[in-house]
């Protein structure tokens, strides 16, 4: 149990997927302008990431490794993720149209969110067991959501500040992300 807690803690804070591993930065910058879309994106990622993490783990262990097909990993993983995203998209379109409209282009882009694919690959590379993969996928996703929502909050405040013209928009956002990343940096060395 303690091991899982340590794993979860390190995935959420120390190796934060966005700010320490640099994965999933496109939606990080793209959907963080408004709190609403950030929250939506965070939940979409949690859902997709946990499912993708588990399914790719199963496929990797039971199919790819067993039949010596490890070189097909990239193709297999991306297919699983793409179909999952399609499913989430259809689900949201039917049941929560407002959120669907808010997320706009970024929902299909979860397919190309490297955080999802990245976590699947990390799970395999670190040779996690099924339970460890479950914990790490969930914790990474929570870390993603946490960083995204925190960042959206900061960005909403930046709108009120007077920013020098060349620094506006993406530029100031990146510098802010750097400072946010610095705060997560402080957790290093805890575990």
């Amino acid at each position, binding site marked *: 149990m303690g091991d899982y807690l340590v794993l979860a803690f390190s995935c959420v804070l120390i190796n934060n997927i966005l700010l320490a591993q640099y994965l999933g930065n496109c939606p990080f910058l793209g959907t963080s302008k408004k709190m609403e879309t950030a929250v939506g994106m965070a939940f979409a990622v949690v859902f997709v990431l946990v499912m993708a993490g588990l399914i790719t783990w199963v496929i990797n262990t039971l199919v790819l490794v067993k039949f010596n097909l490890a070189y097909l990993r990239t193709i297999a993983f*991306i*297919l699983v993720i793409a179909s999952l995203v399609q499913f989430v998209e259809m689900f949201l379109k039917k049941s929560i149209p407002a959120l669907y409209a808010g997320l706009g282009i970024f929902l299909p882009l979860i397919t190309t969110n490297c955080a999802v694919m990245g976590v699947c690959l990390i799970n395999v590379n670190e040779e996690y067991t099924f339970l460890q993969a479950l914990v790490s996928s969930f914790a990474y996703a929570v870390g993603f959501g946490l960083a995204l929502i925190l960042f959206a909050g900061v960005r909403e405040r930046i709108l009120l500040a007077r920013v020098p013209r060349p620094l506006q928009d993406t530029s100031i956002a990146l510098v*802010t992300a750097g400072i946010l990343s610095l705060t997560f940096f402080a957790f290093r060395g805890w575990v």
Partner: protein
Amino acid sequence: MAKTLTQEFVKGLWDEIPPFRLVLGLCPVLAVTKTVENGIGMGVATTFVLVCSNILVSMLRKVIPSKVRIACFIIIIATFVTVVELVMQAFAYPLFLKLGIFIPLIVVNCIVLGRAEAFASKNNLLRSILDGMGIGIGFTLSLAALGAVRELLGSGTLTFWETPIQIMGPSFQPFTFLIEAPGAFVALGLMLCIMNLLGKK
């Protein structure tokens, strides 16, 4: 508003240079630019995938049904990424180890899919090749530039062919912040700011 072929190529080098003008594909940009060498390696790998996938997507653009086009594009891209992965494993193993997880992640690099969707699926073969090369070379240049800034100030060296060359004198105090994660964000943000200052926009 048809662009000439030269314009198609050159736009990737300044007007639409990723990741500065098109803010896409940031993850490898931030992650692998600790040294110049890693940056260039990543850039070349991405360029290869970009050109090859643009060629295939452009050739197949009339065959692929529009409803499943994204899935088709991704499979095409994934195929070429696998090729790159295997080739690098065979011929550039140290670099492969350093870039690690970011080689398979070229699949999910928004630039590659973005060009397939926005350009190659609508334009003929020659234009798509030029577009892929332009954007790819632009991407490589950006990675190399960011890598050079971070490595030079962060550790005082520049790495080519696995040999770090000491550029700064012995009294230079490395600014290690730039090598770490937060430094990557700040360096990219400031470079973007400089691009904005120089550019017309």
